[in-house]
């Protein structure tokens, strides 16, 4: 039987699968709701990162001098600073430690850094005695900012007294959340984008798993393979259906969240690889499922590890190197790279190759397992 005939049979099975999908109330309700929900969340998030750091200052008569010195230092460190004066050192410490918002020139802001000059600073400087300036730093403040603050205090006091003063930091644990992307920050929208894409892909893999499970459990697959349609035709059709569902809806989502601004073809290739991978996952989960609930449960078992690279992208710096071993890592890196950093084909080539390799492995595994299930009917 020629290839044209085989293609016609596969097309007929795909059309049948899509018709069944379109009549499944669960997916027909879930899919648009999910799209609207995801797109809504995306556009509610800020599309830029506020790099301005609010610095609280306490020091009698020193506010103006300190602000001037701070701003000149901020230029040197490429860090935008806003200065908020405090009435007492205790109030400043409380604001930094509690993370409460204080009123400044441009609205309310938290104060992650505070500098408290001692009340006797001027007298001490005049007497040539040492004085202690305390810097309060929130754990989330990058280490480079803390270093800059220390340098600033030294400069400021040197300007006032003509001598260095010892600068101490209170004991606070330094924990930087996420990868330090100073000067190259990724906006919350950019960080969320790959997670939304992978969630759509994974949900559509569950839709395919449902279709496959029904075909196996109701033994309609058996009826199909005693016609001129071969087992290979049936499996090809399932792969095409799963890929179509996952690819089309992920592309739609990415369009709605404005992801196609740079290298759209590259992004489409990445999504296609992800969709083929998810079709393999759907075939695996559908083959193993005994009913709707077990199919969903098995799908979730796959979903959790496959979503980890996207979660790592959402919170840069939390993930360890083992994340790179997960099948969706290459796909996520490509999405992040293309949409957030404007990666080219050459930048993405390694990750596309990783994705393609995983595609082959997972799709082949899904094909093999599903074939065995169909042949055992």
């Amino acid at each position: 039987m020629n290839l044209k005939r085989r293609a016609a049979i596969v097309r007929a099975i795909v059309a049948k699968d899509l018709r069944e999908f379109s009549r499944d109330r669960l997916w027909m309700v879930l899919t648009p709701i999910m799209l609207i929900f995801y797109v809504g969340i995306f556009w509610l998030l800020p599309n830029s990162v506020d790099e301005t750091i609010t610095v609280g200052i306490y020091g009698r008569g020193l506010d103006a001098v300190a602000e001037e010195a701070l701003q000149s230092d901020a230029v040197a460190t490429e860090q935008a600073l806003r200065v908020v004066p405090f009435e007492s050192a205790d109030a400043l410490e409380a604001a930094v430690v509690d993370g409460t918002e204080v009123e400044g020139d441009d609205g309310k802001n938290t104060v992650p850094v505070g500098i408290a000059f001692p009340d006797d600073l001027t007298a001490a400087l005049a007497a040539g005695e040492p004085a202690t300036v305390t810097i309060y730093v929130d754990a989330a403040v990058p280490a480079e900012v803390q270093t800059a603050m220390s340098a600033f205090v030294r400069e400021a006091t040197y300007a006032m007294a003509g001598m260095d003063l010892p600068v101490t930091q209170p004991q606070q644990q330094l924990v930087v959340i996420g990868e330090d992307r100073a000067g190259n920050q990724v906006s919350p929208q950019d960080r969320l984008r790959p997670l939304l894409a992978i969630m759509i892909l994974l949900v559509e893999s569950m839709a395919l798993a449902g279709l496959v499970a029904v075909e196996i459990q109701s033994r309609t697959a058996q009826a199909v393979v005693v016609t001129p349609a071969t087992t290979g035709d049936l499996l090809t059709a399932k792969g095409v259906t799963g890929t179509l569902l996952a690819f089309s809806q992920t592309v739609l989502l990415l369009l709605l969240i404005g992801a196609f601004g740079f290298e759209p073809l590259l992004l489409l290739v990445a999504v296609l690889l992800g969709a083929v991978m998810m079709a393999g996952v759907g075939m695996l989960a559908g083959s193993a499922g005994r009913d709707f609930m077990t199919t969903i449960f098995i799908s979730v078992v796959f979903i959790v590890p496959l979503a980890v690279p996207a979660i790592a992208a959402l919170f840069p710096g939390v993930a360890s190197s083992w994340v790179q071993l997960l099948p969706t890592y290459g796909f996520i890196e490509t999405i992040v790279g293309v949409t957030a950093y404007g990666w080219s084909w050459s930048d993405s080539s390694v990750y596309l190759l990783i994705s393609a390799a995983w595609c082959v492995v997972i799709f082949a595994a899904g094909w093999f397992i599903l074939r065995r299930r169909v042949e055992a009917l």
Partner: protein
Amino acid sequence: MTQSTPVASMTVDAGSAAHTAAAVSAEELSFSYGETEAVRGISFEIAPAEIFGFLGPNGAGKTTTIKMLTGQLRPKGGSVRIMGRDVGRDDPVTQAQIGVCFEEKNLYDAMSGEENLRFFASLFEVDGVDTDALLQRVGLADRAGDRVGSYSKGMRQRLMVARALVNQPSVLFLDEPTDGLDPVSSKAIRAVIREEAERGAAVLLTTHDMWEADELSHRVAFINEGRIYAIDTPENLKLQHGERSVKVRRRDGAGVHEVSVALDDPGAGDELRKAVQAEGLMTIHTEESTLENIFVEMTGRALEA
């Protein structure tokens, strides 16, 4: 009870149908599920236009045999030919010539009856299939557009039969086609089976209903524990293995009396004459053995077991 020895290979004259080239030919067919031998070297042929009843209890090997005949299972031994062509798994040429009605009602519930038929017709590359006529034949024309999920068990069974006919198959495999149907629907399906045989299709019919097998089949095969015990026409089986008798009932002052006269006994004529001439004759019934009785006699196992 005397049990028969299984028949390893048998060629039987089935009347006019058996004289033409076989539509289905199974030779020394065997299959095992692990250590369990499901089919043990069975052989038979089905001619075009012949209805071949395949009778046996659950677990006898009927479904496994059908799976081998339709290319779903590869035999562990022996060979199968459909319309003169060796059957292999995924052989589109052979499968284009067969129609299968499974015991399980494996239909697409989310699609209508008509859509189910059109989908399977597209797999057979049948353009412009007359779904209305097919559904009319099985009495489902008025439910053509309804989703199969809303069909009753009997309606689903009738749609299964219609589906098996979308490609006008040369060989029709029907696994319990009237199971669960009401008498009117069963009669309609039996009419369809006869029509298909008259069209020239070879029909392999499995059923638990011995009356149905007797009524429809040109020949029947008794299968049990993977072996065929007999292949013949129902009439020959009944003649060879049954006990012909006449039962005479009469009433007198003491009540109703019944006399059974075995026709094959010497002196049966005199005994029958005496019984009929006695006073108070009520009824006379001829009796012959049923296929079920013969099956039990030959295999030592009831069909419904």
